Structures are given as C-alpha cells and as structure tokens.
C-alpha cells in the first residue's frame, strides 16, 4: 500500500461537508479503548490546529490567497472540531495531559527511528528525552495530588521514569535554534517529520497554557507553567529545523502532505472501527486538500507541484510502544544539552554561559518539577499500593 500524493485525488474540497451532529459525535471510551486511539485523537487535533495557525499567518501575509485559504481553513476547522470532540468529558485535564505526553514520547520516537537525516534524528531524540521526563512529573502529580494511576491512561505502553530532568531543560533561546534541512536536497519524509512535530508540540504548548491555570493545586499550576515553557522551547527547536527559504505555498503544500501522511498512519493502525472510519474519511479530505493547494501552487508559482511532492508515501508512523528504543536513548543521551545548534555533554556547558545563567535565575526560588516528583517511583495502582503515605510513617494504633 502506498499513497500517491498528487494522483490519489480524494474528496474535492467543495464536497467536504458536515453537520453539527457529525461534528459532535460519541467519544472514544477512556476506559475501554486502546491508549493509542487517544494518542491518535490528540495528535490529529494538534495536526489540524497547526493548519489553522499556519493558514492564518499565510493569509495575513498574502492578500491574493485569502479567499482560497478561507475556504480550505473552514473545512480544517471543522475537522479539528470533530477530532477534538472525540475526547470524552470524563477525561480530566490531567488525564488528557498524560495523553499529550504519550503522544510526544511515542510519536517522536517513531519519527526519530525513521528519520533519514542523522542530525535531525538526534534533534528528535533530544526532544524525546525531555518529554519523557515531563511524563514522569505529570505522573507524580496525578498520583500524589489526585490519588490516581497514570498507567490507567498509558496502559503499560509508555514508561513513567525520570528522563533529562526538566529543571535542567531550561535553556537560553539562542540554544534552541537548530540547523535546518535544505529544501532542495532534503528527503520528503524529513520534511513531513519536521512538520508533524512542530504541529504536535505547538498544540501541546497551547493546551498547557490553556488548562494550566484551571488546576487547583498550586504545585500543579507551577508544574504546568514550567513544562509549558519547555514546550515553547520545543516549538522553537522544531520550527528552526524547517528551511525558512520555502515559499508560503510550498509550506502550505507540505503541510497538506503532512496531514495525508498522518491520517494515512492513523488509518493503518486504528482498531476502533468507528474512529477508523473518521480517519479514512479525512484521509480522502486531505488528498483533496493536496490537490487544491497543488493547483494554487502551480497557478501562482508556475512550478510543478511534483517538484515538492516528489515521492509516494509508503512509510507510516508506528503507533506502538517504543520502550526499548527510548531506554537506549536514555542510557546514551540523557546527559546532553544544547549549545546553539549542537548537542554537547552537560558537563561541557559553558560555565556562566547564557543557558546556565538563564536556568539559575528561573530555578532560583525552587521549581515544581523537582518538588512534585521527589523520590517518586511509579507502581501499579499508584505509589500508595507500595508504601504508606509519608504523612503517617508509623502505623497508628487506632484502638489505643
């Protein structure tokens, strides 16, 4: 099976229609569905939200494209609605957050493994270890503040272990700008990976910025604030690996191809038949979008769209547990930090350099990521299944 981006025509844009009932339909089950169904829903919401983000930026800069972009964007907005509303209302903000981090870990690992450019694969592994640590911190928050088991959401696919400590992830903005791929020579797959990750991370940042202040416990409020700051770093990192020399329409074309790539991956892996039908429908919609944008591209730039979308899609994102790969990266690369576009051992970070000073300032009054997870070890059924609460270290004699 493969997808021919320019010749598989999909559903024409003018035939892409919805009703409110379709947009707000029954959700997946938090309890019974596979964790990767939630992962796909969260990911695809992020993918669609980035289309809106990019399309609006493009509109602001290109009067001539505004009408065409508005037509396309209306459908994308409705697609995002349908997907995001698949999240059930009994899934709390923090439970959804665990889902976001599972996306960040498993999807980044999947792309790192398939990335043909070794430098970019390292960029992905670098980001992966940071999101991996976020899972540990949020897991501790869930366990210790709400008395709930993060593995109820993770279903044992993804670890709850410390990664590169979040407190060490705070770096000066200059150390978040990476080298970019070259638009002329880079493999299409490389571009689709980069577009996927920037979309996913952007939505993660936006989600934490929206829900963080709704958390009641002050430790949770600060935890969301601290991790949201890292997600902003990640958006900066992933954005910087994309060649800024791509034209607006070239980027739009690649964005649409990236959506096809993601929906195609969802179709290949989804086990819930009702949700799978949605992925299939939207795969056809996105192929229609590629065609629509390819026409715009060819009319405005007088270039063949095939010069950008030059290969068939054969590879997909593997929505599976990457435990062994992630642990291997943990063993080898936890101690790395970034110095400009390069990755260096933390011990070699310039003393009193911009990142060190930045971090010391931010952490100077303590940080939630260390406090929330001090001594935390995940256990099936929560920490309390293994040990007594610390507030009552000695068995009280209730009958004394």
């Amino acid at each position, binding site marked *: 099976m493969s997808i021919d981006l320019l010749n598989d025509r999909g559903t024409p844009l003018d035939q892409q229609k919805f009703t409110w009932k379709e947009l707000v339909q*029954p959700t997946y089950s938090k309890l*019974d569905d596979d964790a990767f169904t939630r992962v796909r829903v969260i990911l695809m919401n992020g993918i669609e939200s980035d289309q809106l983000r990019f399309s609006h930026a493009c509109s602001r800069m290109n009067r001539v494209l505004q009408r065409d972009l508005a037509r396309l964007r209306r459908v994308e907005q409705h697609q995002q609605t349908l997907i995001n509303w698949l999240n059930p209302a*009994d899934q709390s903000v923090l439970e959804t957050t665990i889902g976001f981090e599972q996306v960040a870990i498993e999807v980044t690992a999947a792309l790192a493994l398939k990335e043909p450019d070794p430098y970019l694969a390292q960029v992905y592994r670098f980001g992966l270890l940071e999101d991996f640590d976020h899972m540990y911190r949020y897991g501790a928050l869930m366990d210790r503040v709400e008395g709930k088991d993060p593995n109820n959401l993770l*279903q044992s696919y993804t670890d709850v272990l410390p990664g590169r400590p979040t407190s060490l992830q705070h770096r000066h903005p200059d150390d978040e700008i990476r080298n970019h791929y070259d638009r002329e020579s880079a493999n299409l797959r490389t571009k689709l990976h980069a577009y996927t990750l920037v979309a996913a991370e952007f939505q993660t940042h936006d989600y934490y910025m929206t829900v963080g202040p709704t958390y009641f416990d002050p*430790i949770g409020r600060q935890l969301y604030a601290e991790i949201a700051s890292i997600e902003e770093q990640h958006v900066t990192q992933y954005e910087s690996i994309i060649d800024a020399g791509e034209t607006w329409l070239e980027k739009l074309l690649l964005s649409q191809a990236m959506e096809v790539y993601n929906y195609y991956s969802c179709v290949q892996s989804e086990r819930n038949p009702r949700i799978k039908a949605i992925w299939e429908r939207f795969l056809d919609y996105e192929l229609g979008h590629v065609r629509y944008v390819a026409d715009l591209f060819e009319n405005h730039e007088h270039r063949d769209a095939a010069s950008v979308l030059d290969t068939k899609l054969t590879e997909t994102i593997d929505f599976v547990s990457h435990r062994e790969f992630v642990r291997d990266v943990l063993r080898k690369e936890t101690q790395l930090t970034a110095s400009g576009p390069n990755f260096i051992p933390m011990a070699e970070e310039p003393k009193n350099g911009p990142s060190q000073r930045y971090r010391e300032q931010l952490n100077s009054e303590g940080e939630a990521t260390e406090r929330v*997870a*001090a*001594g935390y070890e995940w256990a099936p059924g929560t920490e309390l299944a293994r040990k007594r609460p610390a507030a009552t270290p000695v068995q009280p004699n209730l009958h004394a």
Partner: protein
Amino acid sequence: MTMHAELGINRTGISTSPALTQDMLAGREEFPPDVAGDERNIALFRAESVQQWNEPLGSVPPPTTVKGMVKSGVTALKGESPVLLIDKLGARLAFERTGVRLYEALLSKFDATGGFDAGPTRVELEGILEDEFNHFSLLKEALTQLGADPTVMTPSADLQATIGAGAMHVIVEPRTNFAQCLEAAVTIELVDNESWDALTALADQSGQRELATRFKAALVQETMHLLHVRRWLANSQGITRSDATT
C-alpha cells in the same frame, strides 16, 4: 442502556498487558528518582502557597442600599456575623437554582432510559424539581428582605458550586445511565440537607425567627428528597437500606 456496568474490555488495569507491565516495572531499578524525598514536598509547597497567596476566594458585598438595609433590619442581625448569614443564604440560593437544572437533566435521562422498577416515577422527580425551585424563590425573597443582592455569587456559593460540579457532569454526560445519575443526585442531596440544617440554625441565631421557621419547612422537604433518592439508588442496586422510606 442497562442499569449496571457490564463485562467488557476495560484496558486500564495491568492485567490487560502483564508482559508490558513487567517491562515497565523493570525500568525502576535502572532509572531511579533523580531527586530524593517524598510527597511531603508537595505538602510544604501547599503551605508556602497559602502564605504567599494570602487571598480569599472573594467577599460578600454590602447591602444594596442603606435604606434597604435599615428597612430589612439587617443591622439588627444578632449572632457572630450578618455577613456569614448573607454568604450562606447566597450559597443555598445558588445551589437550589442549580438543583432545578440538575433535576431537569435527571428528567431528561429518565425520559431517555425509562427509569426502572422500584425507581422514581416522573411525577416524583418533577415534585423534587418543583421543591428546588420553590426553595430558590424563598431564598431570593429572604435575601431581598435583608437588603442583600440575590444575584450575587457569594464565596460560599462559589465553593459549593465547585464541590457539586462533578454531580452535574455525571448527570448530563450522555453515556451515564439513570442509576449512575442517582448516585450523583444523592451526593447533592446530602450536601443540601447538611447545608439547610446549618442555615436554619444560623438564621435562628441571627434573630431571623420567621425565616428560620420557613427554612425548617424547606429542610423537612430536603430530608424527604434524600430519603427518596437513597431508596431509589438502593433499589437500583437490589439492596435494602434500613433508613430508606418505603
């Protein structure tokens, strides 16, 4: 929709994936916590935050007009604090108003699922809804009499809305069945009973005897609500409660 959860493929427990779970557990030794300590760090942070924030949820506004205040006799209120009485009256008003909406939602669930044997009739649920509305109206009148603004969300009203939010979520969620909704309703009725009891005593101690008498009548109705909902809930689970009405 059935009245009880059924056997299925719930995937949240470790028994769904024992091998994956063993792998997961094996990582704990190799990748231990990076910082020593335990959950008491969170407790300390909470205590620090209480001191740092040092702010209440909000306040009770003064009576709308001095004239209204004098006319209503609010200045003559006895007891610890007339502000406390206004705060708690505002809480009951808001809770009863939400209670009307909650029973409307419960009626929707009843209509959709049809209830069950030994459960409530529609008329019985409508009766409780009517009581909730009447209690709301009573409190609106009481606050107005005292020169207070009945449209204010007082701190206690905000607090009880936060406490009760989960019950409303359960009742309006399309996937919950009627028995599950009764479980939510019983928590609301328990809070309501406790609060009416306290409010009646507070009104009495504040020298508002007439109000206290009217509140006592409302409390009797609320006690009946609780007994009814408890009985229906018990019946839905096939259990017998000694304190439930027959």
